[in-house]
């Protein structure tokens, strides 16, 4: 019987199966690598770069890099942490993240990853873009100011819900999330809160109406323990403070 192939991640031996990415193998081994656009239920996107690791001395996105026998992978080292922090800081200044006024605060993956990488301030010059809020849907609200273009809602709506409600339009700094209707309004779609697309947003962009601030400060998902211990908000059941439908 041939032995299962392995690589090392910060000195720990991680077994993997052929075709698995570094991220998938780490996840299976219970090792956390911070990420935003990655969700194990979807095809990796490789766009946020937060999951970058050093593989045999080169920076690679762990969610798209195939695991290979004998790789030496480094994740929790200062050099990688600093790049991750820089990426988070850029995400924060690119949108409008007023956490004190955001219903998602405390259970937001973006915020939790920023805490995890030790971001104390956004460092860069704020863009303060003027993006709209779409409240046209009877049950859901989209605050585009908080969108980080991870395309998880796009993927969920297309691949799981079969509705294709969301898309990203424009390129580079002009890239932005749109709703696939002539009016661009969510209210004109058949989007529903029971859609997978309503459960995957790692930020406070897609929110449900008619409820809010139900869990007191101090008891929210990431108030007591960090995301590497708690897990992703999209992976946890609503009853546990997450977004996944029970």
């Amino acid at each position: 019987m041939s032995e299962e192939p392995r690589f090392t991640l910060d000195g720990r031996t991680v077994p993997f199966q052929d075709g698995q990415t570094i991220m998938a193998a780490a996840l299976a081994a219970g090792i956390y690598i911070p990420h935003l656009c990655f969700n194990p239920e979807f095809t990796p996107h490789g766009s946020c770069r937060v999951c970058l690791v050093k593989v045999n001395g080169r920076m690679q996105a762990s969610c798209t890099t195939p695991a290979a026998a004998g790789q030496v992978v480094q994740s929790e080292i200062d050099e990688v942490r600093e790049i991750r922090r820089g990426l988070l800081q850029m995400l924060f200044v690119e949108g409008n993240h007023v956490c004190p006024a955001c219903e998602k605060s405390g259970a937001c993956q973006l915020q939790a990853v920023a805490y995890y990488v030790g971001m104390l301030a956004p460092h860069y010059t704020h863009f303060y873009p003027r993006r709209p809020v779409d409240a046209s849907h009877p049950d859901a609200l989209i605050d585009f100011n908080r969108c980080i273009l991870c395309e998880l809602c796009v993927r969920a709506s297309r691949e799981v819900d079969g509705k294709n409600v969301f898309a990203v339009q424009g390129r580079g700094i002009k890239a932005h999330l749109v709703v696939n209707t002539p009016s661009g309004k969510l209210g004109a779609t058949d989007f529903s809160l029971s859609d997978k697309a309503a459960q995957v947003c790692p930020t406070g962009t897609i929110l449900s109406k008619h409820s809010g601030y139900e869990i007191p400060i101090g008891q929210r998902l990431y108030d007591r323990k960090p995301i590497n211990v708690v897990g992703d908000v999209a992976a946890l059941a609503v009853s546990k403070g997450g977004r996944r439908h029970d």
Partner: protein
Amino acid sequence: MIESKLKVATCSLCGCFGCHMSLLDLDERLFDLAEKVEFDRSPLTDLKELGECDIGIIEGGIANVENVHTLLEFRARCKILIAMGACAISGGIPAMRNHYELKDCLEESYTRGIGLVDAQIPNDPEIPLLLDQVHPIHEVVKIDYFLPGCPPSADTIWTFVTQLLAGQPIALPYTQIHYD
């Protein structure tokens, strides 16, 4: 040898004074603090003039010309400058006005507000001119330390201040780092 106390100045620029309230929440720990530091200009002392200080703590972002002058003065007179709270760090709630033209904000409050009589936009020369946008303070001066929170809790402030005064690297525990 009598150790001279470190001089600390604080001020609130475009903030809500919540961070200063949190500072007061140190409660009896303020006595311990008073053993080690002497407050210079601060809402706590009501001194209006800023002397040469070791530490300056700024609450709030910059929203008007006076805020900018005060900030520059703090930077010039304080050896260590600290941004305390969400508004100083990212503009915070007041920066939500950056979504609108300043003119529209003023008209909304002063000419279209409910129940106004003889409505007009205040223009007394004593009122500092507003900036077109609210900005965090690190976009204007160099900041040495950032203390996030809206407001940072008294425990966060205490951890920070004790580590700083002891000359230790700042290491806040997980539960004391919040952006809200």
